[in-house]
Each structure stands twice: as C-alpha cells, then as structure tokens.
C-alpha cells in the first residue's frame, strides 16, 4: 500500500505534464492542419501568397509550444527531469491541477484559432493587403491560451515540492 502511494506522486505529476504536452499538441495539429488544407487550395490559384499565408498557418501552432513549455516547467520544477521520483501524492496532485488550464484551453483555443486563421486565409486570397487584420483576429483567440499558460506556469512556480 505504501509503495502504491509513493508511486502516486510521480504518477500524477507525469500525468499532468503529459496532458499539458498532449492536449494542446492535438489542438495545434488540428488547427494548423485545417489552415494548411485551405492554404494549399488558395496557393493553386496564387502561389505568390505563400509567405503571407504561411504566417497565418503558423498561428495556431503556438499552443503546442505552450504545452511543451508547461511540460518542461512541470518536469523541471518537480525534479522528474533530473531523475528524482521523491514526490508526495499531495504535491503530485497540485502539479496535475496546475497543468489543467493550458491542457484544456490550449487544445480548444488552437482549434478555434485554426478556424479564424482559415477564414483569414480566405480573406488574404481575395485581399492580400489585409493580411495583418487576419493575423490580429486570429491573435485575439490566442489571448486565452496565453492567460491559461500564465495560470499554469505561475501555479507550477508557486508549488513548493514536499
């Protein structure tokens, strides 16, 4: 029984880190993918728009990076990255909870940002001069991923491992 409890701390921590890297990654892949599909279609008509459209496609990709960043912060701060598994189940649970904001907000916001970017690609296809407006509209969605990232990072940094 004691052995099981000693596994619970590192397990929960790893689970939190994994979710932080996993869910926003899925969301970003979905978002970047859906923009890419539309972008390829636009490029068949006008290949010179590649540079402008590529930026729009890259936008929903940041959530995946925020996820990786959170994973790293959790692994580093809990000592798992250095090989230590001495984490109490209470601490493990707090790491798990800390991972939730970026995990979920990251996943969903990447998908929604992908939709806005997708519409932005259609806008750029018709009016290449309006690229910056398409970018800013997509960046509005990212605000919430950024807020979630801050919540996760500040939580992780405030945890004092026991």
């Amino acid at each position, binding site marked *: 029984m004691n052995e099981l409890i000693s596994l619970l701390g590192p397990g929960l921590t790893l689970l939190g880190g994994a979710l932080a890297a996993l869910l926003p990654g899925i969301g970003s892949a979905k978002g970047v993918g859906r923009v890419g599909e539309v972008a390829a279609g636009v490029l068949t008509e006008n290949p010179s728009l590649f540079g402008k459209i590529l*930026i729009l496609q*890259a*936008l929903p*990709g*940041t959530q995946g*990076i*925020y996820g*990786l*960043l959170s994973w*790293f*912060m959790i692994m580093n701060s809990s000592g798992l990255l250095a090989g230590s598994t001495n984490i109490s189940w209470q601490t493990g649970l707090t790491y798990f909870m800390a991972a939730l904001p970026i995990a979920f907000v990251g996943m969903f916001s990447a998908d929604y940002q992908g939709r806005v970017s997708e519409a932005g690609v259609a806008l750029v296809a018709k009016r290449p001069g309006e690229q*910056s*407006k398409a*970018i*800013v509209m997509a*960046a*509005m969605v*990212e*605000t919430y991923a*950024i*807020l979630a*990232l*801050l919540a996760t*990072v*500040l939580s992780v*940094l405030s945890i004092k491992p026991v």
Partner: protein
Amino acid sequence: MHRLTLVGLTEQKADVLEALMRLGAVEMDELSAQHVALETQPYDERGYLSLNAISRLELAAAYCRHHNPASQHLGTGARLVKPEAFLSVADREHAIMEQLTAMEYLQTQIAEIKTLIAHDRTLQETLAPWRSLKINLAEMMTQETVILIGAFPTAEAVEAFKATIPEDAPETYFELIGADAASFRVLIATLKSRESVVHGNLRQHGFHLLPVQGMDGTPQAILDQIFNRQDDYQRRIERLETELQNLVPMGVDFELLHDFFLLRSDKIDALHHLSSTTSTFYLQGWVPADVADDMGSALQSRFVVAVAHRQPIDGEEPPVLFDNHPLVKPFEVIVEMYAPPSAADIDPTPILAPFFFFFFGMMLADIGYGLVLTGLMGWLAFVKKAEGELGRLARLLFLSGIGAIFFGVLFGGFFGDMLTVLTQGQVVVPSFWFNPMNDPIKMMIWSILFGAVHLFTAMGAKIYMLAKTGHIMDGIFDIAPWYLIIIGGGLLLGGNSILPGLPMAQIGQWMALGGAAVILLFGGRDAKNPIVRLFKGLGALYNITGYFSDLLSYTRILALVLAGSVIAMVINLLGFMLGPTPAGYIMFTLVALFGHTLNLALSVLGAYVHTSRLQYVEFFSKFYEGGGKIFNPLKQRSHFIKFDRTK
C-alpha cells in the same frame, strides 16, 4: 494637403502632365466612369495594345535577368540607368519588339518539344510492360476476329473473367502475357460477333484496355522509335537554348522598353483623367501644403497655366502623407496596416513607435536573437537595399531587433542560457535588471505597469484630440478620471510595498473613489433627468471591466518572454546531452542551429503579432479611428530601372 486646381492649354497638356509626373507631388482626382470612355484603351501608335506589350516585355526581361550572369546580382532590384540611355530606347522600339518576338518564338518551340518529350515518356511507361508482345498494334483484327489487349487489376479478376468464357463466348482465346503486383496483362482474341458480350464481361471485372491500340508497329518497334528520337529532341532543345542564350543580353533593352511603355501608358491613362475643351484642360487634385507654392511657380515658369490651391474645406477627405522622423518612419507600416489616419485623426506613428520598440524588445528579449534579427534585417535593408513591403518590414524589424538586444542585456539572455550550459555553469550572462525566469511575478507586475503607461498615453492622445476640436470638457469628465481610478487602484493593491511608512493604500483608495465619483456624476451629463443621469453614469463606470481586461492583456509580455527563453533552454539542454566531448559539441552545434533558428522564427512572429495586437486593440481603441487614404501622387513609375541623375 491643399486642394489644387490647375487650368492650362490643351496643346501643352501632355507636357504639363509629364512635368507633374516628374515632380511626383500631385494626386489627381479619379474621374467618374462616364468620363473615361471605352475607346481610350492605350493603344500605341504602332497598334499594339501596349499593356499587352508591357506584360510580354516584363516576362522576357525577368527571364533574361535570371539567366544572365551579369544581371543576376540585381535580383528583383532596380538597375541604375542614365536618362539619356533611357530616352534613346524609343528610337529602337521596333527592333527591340522584333527581338522580343524572336525570343518568344524560341521559347514556344522549346516548350513544344518539351511537351513531345513528356508525351513520349508517358508512352514509354505505358508500353514498357508490353515489350514482349509481337503484334503490330495497328493490326488488331481480321475479317472475323478481334484482338483485345489490356490489364486486370487483380488475379481474382482474371479468374472471374476466365470463368465467364465457356458460357458466354466459348471461341475466345485467352493468354496471360505478364503480371506484376497491380496489373495482370492479358491478350484476348474472340469472334467479332462475340465482341460486345466479351467487352461487357471485361468491364465488369475491372479490365483496362491498353490506351495506345491503333499505333503503327509492335510495342518494341514503337519503343525503339521513341529511343531514337530522344537524342534528336535533346539536340534541338540544346540548339534552341543556345540561340535563346544569345538573346539574353537583350534583357537590358527589354527592361528599358518595358519601363518606357509603362511610363507612356501611365501618361495616356492620366491624360484620360483630364477634362478638356478644344483649347484648355482642367485638373483637380491634392498637393502637400509645403510644396504647393513651389510647384505652382515651377509650372508657371515653363507653361501657360493657372494654378490655385487652398486649405481643404469641411466634408472633403484629403489623402494623407506621413511626415515622420527617419527613426519613426519604419513604424508607419504598422499604422498603415490598421488603417491610414483620416483627416480627423492625428498621425499616431510618433507615439506608437517607442511602445512598439519597447514591447517587441521585451517579448523577444535575447541578446543573441536580437543580434541575429538585427543583422539579418540590416543586411536586407541596407546592403540588399530591399524595397517595397519587404524593405519596410526589414527596417521595422531592424529597429525592433535592437530593442530585443536592449532587453536581452537587462534580462541576461543570450540564446537562452547557452553560455551557462556550454561552460557548465562557469559563465552566467549577468542581468542588469532581473531575470524574469527567476521572478515571473515581478515581470508580470512590470508588464502591467508598462501597459498602464501605454494606455495612459493613448488616453492622453484622446484628450488632446478632444481639446483640439473644442470638446475639452469631454476629456476632463470622461477620460481624465480613469487616470485617478487606475493609479488609485494600483496604489491600493501595491502602494504599501513601494513606499512603506506612508499610507499609500489609503491615498490610492481615495483617488479611485474620487475618480469613480466624477464618472458617476458626470458620465451622463447630457441627460436632464437626474435619475437617468445617475444611471448613465453607472453605465459609464461599468467601463472599469474594459480597462481591467486591457491591463491584464499586457501579461502576454510575460508569457512570451517565458515561452521564448524556456524553449531556448530546452534546446540548449537537449543539444548538450552528450556533455563536453567532441561528439557532444558537434551535436550541440547541429541541435542549436536547427532549434534556435526555429525558436527565433516563432518568437519573432509571436512578438510581432502580439505587439501589433497591443497597439491595435488596447492602444488604438482609445483614440484612433483611421480610415483615410494614403497620398498616391502621379509619378514616373518604373519597374526595372532607376534613374541615375549623377553626372
């Protein structure tokens, strides 16, 4: 901008226009569609539609530039040309156009042969599996029988078809000629009277008839013919390409003539925008106020013209021309992307520029990344002399990169913690202020404080604009109280820790309450009924949520700083996994090159996007509307060349 009216003699119309184009200081009004008749298509005197000639010349000139070793260094930049050389091109117009036609003819011929080669290649691929078949493809039938050759997709399909033979067409001869994974090639001979039944069965089992039946010769013979003419094609292409290469030096002439036609077509275009009578013409437009007088006297000294200019009157929307210090100029791009200022706006560029520099620098905040970005963009802007959109963006990022170096020094980042990792902790790049990684809360507070300064500046601009239009009371009652509320709120939250010993929190509390009282009492001052007025004031006070979320929005600075530097740390960590061994250093170089390039690209994109957003959403929403039109004067447009006016 001044409103310009010009009247002149029709016989001097073309010359006056040319002078105006050379000055490049007048924007002509667009004439309504009815004035521009359809027959004004700019044909030149030799009858070719010169727009068509322009695009042909553009293609040819671009081809020549790309294939001429002497011109390649120009890229898409401009070639310096003496004005005399440019004008002389008009005399050779006919000869140049003939060369152009010759060049296009060669290009067409090469393209035709390439099509033939591609066709042969398809044929080769189709026929290669049938090489062993000893039948002339043109003789596929006799009086009574017909031969069908083709392929089944699977072995099962072959068997299924064979099973139908005894019943439907017992006279059929069937032979499997060859097979590989996805095609089972067969020859089928049957009676003509059975052909349609057999065809039906074949179709049912996914049979594909060999598409080239009817060509003369056995597959082997056709393949040999293809093989033999390959060399011939290649030789012809080589000969044509040599001829084409001989024409490549003509590219300079193509460029000159292209720009010559372009100028002429612009001029013809402009001529059609003028209203004229038999002996006079009339032009209206805009001219920058500071050059209006000089332009008028310059024209009057050479031509018989009457020139008048005046201030714009209410209801007129003059175009706008930015007039900014060279250090601020690159930031005009950001304003233009949002919307150029209208006549009612002030030019926000000078107050936007320092904040853009500051926020971008904070978000990227790395000495290494800043140096790479500044170096790259400086090279693009000042060595390659990139022009147009790219050039403007390069100059913007050049300055912004300097901001990143500045904050890199303050925060102590050089490609993340590269030096610390490489020296195993012996060298730590010092931070002259503090390291946001160690104290993120402090960084968050500073982000919001800088954000407050940003917002305050925008509010100040709004008050200034209101004062200028005589609505100073609106500024005092609607905007100024927010300074009290925001500063007071800040002191209430953190005042005691800044200046211990003084009752800062109390002072803040009273400031905030005072500001709120002003909004509550005066927010609805246009309402007569005191109760309605109070409710309107309450509504105005509700804006507090807007200001609160605006301030929180600046925490993105912290998030981007963390994202950039943590990813850089991860790259360094991964790269140095093998430790300080030769193999370890090689691996580190590779991982760092790839990883930091990627992180730099993403961080720059992120910093650019989010800095722009802070300007557009938080900053501009407080005072700036935009919606003007950029001044677009009549000028000598050129694509390939630039005049070298040095003697």
